[in-house]
């Protein structure tokens, strides 16, 4: 009975898929990791070894090239060049700071009043490229001194100055002739003797105002220097000592006479 129930007229499919039994696949993760790590380490060691050799070779090559570059220049050449450079710097500096004090005299000659004469001069090159000019002048009245001061202060080079001191005295001739000073003084007051006013004009300026420019200062020519030329006051002043600076150079002018009226 049991067989008959199994004998079905419907043929059984022999190709009926048998249900596969899914077994547990064993993956050895630790094994893979260990092998990868180990062989990776070995490979890395080899690579690092060769890379190290390569870097070392590059380093040696760079070192050799650096020594070669260092040997290319000599200390003598460098010292020579440095010395030349320093000379050029100094020469440039000296040229830029070169001065022409003779310009002061040209400036002074152009503003000397006719009834004032100068008996002393001093020029001093100070710290920080400045200069001080001190002029000692004489006049027979205060008005010429005032006029001289005005002329000097209007000058471009000597303008930054002023009369710093003056001395009013009777002339030496009066003292010599008259033993009694009181008498001389009275005579002076009465106008019989000329007073002598000695004043000092001090000017300070920058040496940049009197630069030396090649070619600007003409070569000295005696004829030119000694020639009399008009000055700014309308009078005449010769460059020579006799008239330009010394007492003998005093020439009365209308200006002096007219300004004297104020005293």
């Amino acid at each position, binding site marked *: 009975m049991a067989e008959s129930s199994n004998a079905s007229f419907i043929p059984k499919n022999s190709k009926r898929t048998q249900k596969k039994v899914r077994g547990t696949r064993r993956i050895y993760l630790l094994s893979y990791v260990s092998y990868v790590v*180990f062989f990776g380490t070995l490979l890395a060691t080899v690579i690092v070894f060769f890379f190290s050799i390569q870097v070392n070779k*590059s*380093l040696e090559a760079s070192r050799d090239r650096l020594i070669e570059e260092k040997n290319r220049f000599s200390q003598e050449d460098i010292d020579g060049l440095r010395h030349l450079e320093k000379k050029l710097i100094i020469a440039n500096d000296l040229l830029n700071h070169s001065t022409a004090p003779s310009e002061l005299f040209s400036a002074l000659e152009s503003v000397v009043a006719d009834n004032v004469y100068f008996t002393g001069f001093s020029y001093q090159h100070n710290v920080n490229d400045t200069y001080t000019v001190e002029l000692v002048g004489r006049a027979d009245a205060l008005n010429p001194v005032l006029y001289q001061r005005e002329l000097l202060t209007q000058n471009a080079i000597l303008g930054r100055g002023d009369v710093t001191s003056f001395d009013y005295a009777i002339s030496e001739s009066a003292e010599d002739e008259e033993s009694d000073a009181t008498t001389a003084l009275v005579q002076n007051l009465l106008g019989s003797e000329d007073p002598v006013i000695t004043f000092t004009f001090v000017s300070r300026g920058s040496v940049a105002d009197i630069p030396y420019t090649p070619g600007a200062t003409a070569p000295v020519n005696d004829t030119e220097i000694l020639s009399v030329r008009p000055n700014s006051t309308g009078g005449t002043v010769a460059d020579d000592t006799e008239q330009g600076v010394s007492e003998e150079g005093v020439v009365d002018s209308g200006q002096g006479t007219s300004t004297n009226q104020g005293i």
Partner: protein
Amino acid sequence: MRFQASIQILLIVISVAIIMTVLRPEFSEIQAMQDQLAEYNNALDKADQYNRALQEKISQANNLPNTDLAALDQYVPNRVDIVRVSRDVVNIVEGSGLLLIDVEVGESSSVTVENANAGVSQSARTGGSLEEEAKRQLAVQPFTIEAIGTYTNMKSLLRAVEQNAYPMRIVGISFTNQSESDSRLLSYTIDVETYALNAQ
């Protein structure tokens, strides 16, 4: 199975040991070498630039005309030859028509060009540039000239000094007219300075 696990663990241990004892120090060494290499390359670049600039300057210096170099040496000598300068002073004074009374050679000192008459500048002593080094090496040699002559002669002297081939800076002039009798002749005192670049 247990044997296989032991091998795996051993491999990992060996790998770690290799990493720690070989690879890590090697990497550090390579890194240090690469840093050094970068420094060397940087130094090489600089040396190359320096050499090129140096060669350029050497060729420039070599191309300078000998006359210019001689003029520069005369303008800024390595030392002041006081005998030669004194001779030049005498020639200038006599050439200007003055009667030379005395040429006094002062004591040489180091100064800056700007403060040539003011002694040594502190700023020049502390600096480190080539310009400041040059100024520290600059020596000044003062001379005092005493002469007698006319005003014209004195101006002539000043112009000659100003036009001298080497710098002869006038730092002081003084004269007074004390004489009433012969005022054409004045007594002048002129202070001048010459310069040299001391080779150190």
